[in-house]
């Protein structure tokens, strides 16, 4: 299928990017004061120089930097992400444990932001420069300017402390072991505030882009043709404007994937969610550089996969793309 081969080509082109990122971050981490062994020894409560040397030899940290890099890349190809000194487990399993909450959070936030961004963007564009537009655009600007972590904190104050409607943090109620639908609902209630918090900024972005895109398309020639055929405004919008205006939005999902992952670091910290973002923060604070590198790898993979899916969707929506191959 043409679409698959085109998206596949773009995917293959991102492999050098991935390698570039890994090499870059790996080299960057060499500048860090203290390495994994220092962190381990701090965990163990101290040790002498001989132990340090032994450990370094064991982990291959006494080799030259290019050799270490080659080692690392070779292990990476076999999906061996190394060992986390802090958690005492392979990095891969630590990351795997923390992946589900982050993916859930990102999916929920993306859907929320995309859907409402679309709806409000269309409403604003239809009523351009009148009160619906002014209201929506102003709210959008305010949401965009709101620091996500602050919004999260305020939401906790309002909804958890005063109104006591929603839990203030955590992924699920650890005390009571729920199963089946009750567990799902419990997790859902824990995710409401984080989703809102993470999604808010992106809602503002999608709203603005959708509005601008709609206005742009509404001025194009083929909309005039549609009106000249006698179509009423609603059908002009749904049949001719919407699909065309969606294209920049779809592209934006790919572009914003990385930012959203970054945003989850903060949101997970605010709401104490056991996700990948918070893991990144902990790795920095505890100087677990292996895990940090592993997170960099997984984040890049996630962004690349999201972009791959976006490419597929975009090619499906726009027949001009497959023609240019």
């Amino acid at each position, binding site marked *: 299928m043409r679409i698959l081969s085109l998206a596949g080509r773009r995917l293959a082109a991102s492999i050098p990017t991935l390698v570039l990122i890994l090499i870059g971050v790996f080299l960057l981490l060499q*500048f860090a004061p203290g390495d994994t062994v220092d962190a381990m020894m701090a965990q163990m409560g101290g040790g002498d120089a001989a132990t340090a040397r032994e450990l370094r030899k064991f982990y291959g940290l006494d080799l030259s930097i290019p050799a270490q890099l080659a080692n690392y890349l070779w292990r990476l190809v076999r999906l061996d992400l190394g060992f986390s000194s802090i958690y005492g487990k392979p990095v891969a399993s630590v990351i795997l444990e923390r992946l589900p909450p982050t993916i859930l959070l990102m999916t929920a936030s993306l859907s929320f932001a995309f859907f409402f961004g679309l709806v409000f963007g269309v409403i604003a564009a239809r009523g351009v420069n009148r009160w619906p537009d002014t209201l929506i655009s102003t709210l959008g600007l305010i949401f965009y300017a709101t620091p996500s972590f602050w*919004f999260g904190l305020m939401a*906790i104050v309002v909804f958890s402390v005063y109104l006591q409607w929603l839990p203030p943090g955590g992924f699920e109620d650890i005390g009571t072991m729920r199963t089946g639908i009750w567990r799902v609902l419990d997790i859902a209630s824990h995710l409401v505030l984080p989703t809102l918090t993470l999604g808010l900024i992106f809602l503002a972005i999608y709203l603005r882009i959708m509005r601008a895109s709609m206005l742009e398309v509404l001025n194009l020639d083929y909309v005039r043709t549609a009106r000249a055929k006698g179509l009423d405004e609603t059908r002009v919008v749904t049949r001719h404007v919407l699909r065309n205006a969606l294209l920049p939005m779809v592209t934006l999902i790919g572009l914003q994937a990385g930012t959203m992952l970054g945003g989850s670091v903060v949101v997970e910290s605010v709401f104490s969610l056991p996700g990948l973002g918070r893991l990144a923060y902990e790795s920095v604070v505890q*100087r677990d550089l292996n895990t940090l590198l592993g997170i960099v790898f997984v984040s890049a993979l996630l962004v690349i996969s999201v972009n791959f899916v976006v490419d597929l969707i975009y090619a499906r929506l726009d027949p001009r793309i497959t023609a240019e191959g």
Partner: protein
Amino acid sequence: MDAVKRYFRSPAAVAGLILLLIVIAMAISAGWFYPRDPLALAGRPLVWPFSNPRFLLGTDNSGRDIAAQIFYGARISLLIGGVATAIAILIGILVGAFAGYYGGWVDNVLMRITEAFQTLPNFVLLLVLVAVFGSTLTTVTIAVGVVSWPAPARLTRAEFLSLRNREFVQAGRTLGMKNIQLIFREILPNALPPVIVYASVVMAVAILLESALAFLRLSDPNVASWGNLIGLGRDVLRVQWYVSAIPGIAILVTVLAVSLVGQGLNDALNPRLKGR
């Protein structure tokens, strides 16, 4: 100039400008209103706002004056925002100009690097940079700038790609101009306006990024920044929520102001978008 007139015709743009000027005024006048070190103990901890005329906005967990920290925090936010933005725009323009003008392998290599920066979530990269280089004001500012250059680069590149084949550039080539001349004296002045406008977006994001870092206690703890204060207030969120609320509003107002000014500039410089 009619661009200036157009700017002032938009109430939102004017409001943004006023807010921004207020924030700048706060930053400049901090030394007069609060001559003592804002991070020094000033009174009893956790005094509520408006309850004590000496501390209009109350005090935080350690008894430091919140209002003083707000005023001094304006300096930090504007400083970091401004410098980081300048770094990002400068790098972005250079990368984008060369990539867009020369095309070919130069473009390929530069775009791979840009893509690498964009594929890695910028906050994760920020964390890595802070882990490696530490959390002083200087390193945080440079780190935020380094994390923010890809978007201006893409924008500049797009402008150059479209302008490079414009006939006035071709005319310059037939007149015998060298490449460097064409890039910096013919194309760049025409490519600059959208990038300058975009600088406001970059600045808004830079301020948000730094405050997020500060909230996570990963920024410079020795300065009075709004993010630091919000982080502090987290410990007393249940009752004295104002410690976190007030600096958050300050950030909101500043970023809002910067965004409004940017939008106003955009509308003023691109009049064809009128009626929107």
